[in-house]
């Protein structure tokens, strides 16, 4: 979900996605950065993202972009996540 949300802002290569998530989350997520590549490939297998080689700052990079199917999936994940956090917050407030 985080990868799709990052790619919704603009097409990016792997390292830029990691930087985006790090900055947007104020460094909340601690994970091995290499795991992003198999994850991106799974999203691509599912048709949720597209990728292509592109020239960025004079270098050839694999750039990922969210697909229409990915946009729909992200919208569903967002709604589900908001329902979940709302429920958790309601319980915490109640206690």
């Amino acid at each position, binding site marked *: 979900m985080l990868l799709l949300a990052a790619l919704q802002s603009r097409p990016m290569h792997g390292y830029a996605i990691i930087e985006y998530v790090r900055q947007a989350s104020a460094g909340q997520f601690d994970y091995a950065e*290499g795991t992003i*590549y198999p994850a991106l*490939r*799974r999203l691509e297998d599912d048709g949720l993202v597209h990728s292509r080689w592109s020239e960025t700052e004079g270098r050839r990079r694999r750039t990922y972009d969210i697909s229409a199917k990915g946009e729909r999936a992200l919208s569903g994940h967002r709604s589900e996540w908001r329902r979940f956090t709302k429920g958790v917050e309601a319980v915490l407030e109640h206690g």
Partner: protein
Amino acid sequence: MDERTTTADPVPRDVYLRDVAGRLAGSRRTRTRLLAEIRDHLDDAAAANRSAGMHPLQAEQRAVELLGNPASLAEGWEARCSRLRRRRRGRAAMLIATSAIASILAAAQHADGHRDPAATAARCRVARSSTAADCRPPGS
């Protein structure tokens, strides 16, 4: 001159890439693409670390550390490949099943087409007073 060239120590980026390459499953094409992406990633991360004031070798080592254990990366890759293989096997099984059903239906229609329509109609008239079983398509 690059400070790395003055030392006999292996370059962390290249050591890491060789380690990952030795663990990856899948086709040569997809592995090559993954390794190119990881190489780009390490170059970007090392450049960012150097810009932040790190020594070039430290900058590369830090980039490698953040990428994580090569075994974990290879496991994630293998999980993705297994998922893809299962999906392909599922599709192949579905295709075989669909072809088999289509063949059976085609054979049944072919056999039905060889019957005399008048004789079939006569049998159906008789069947109304007895049983409808004779009017079922052949092979059912």
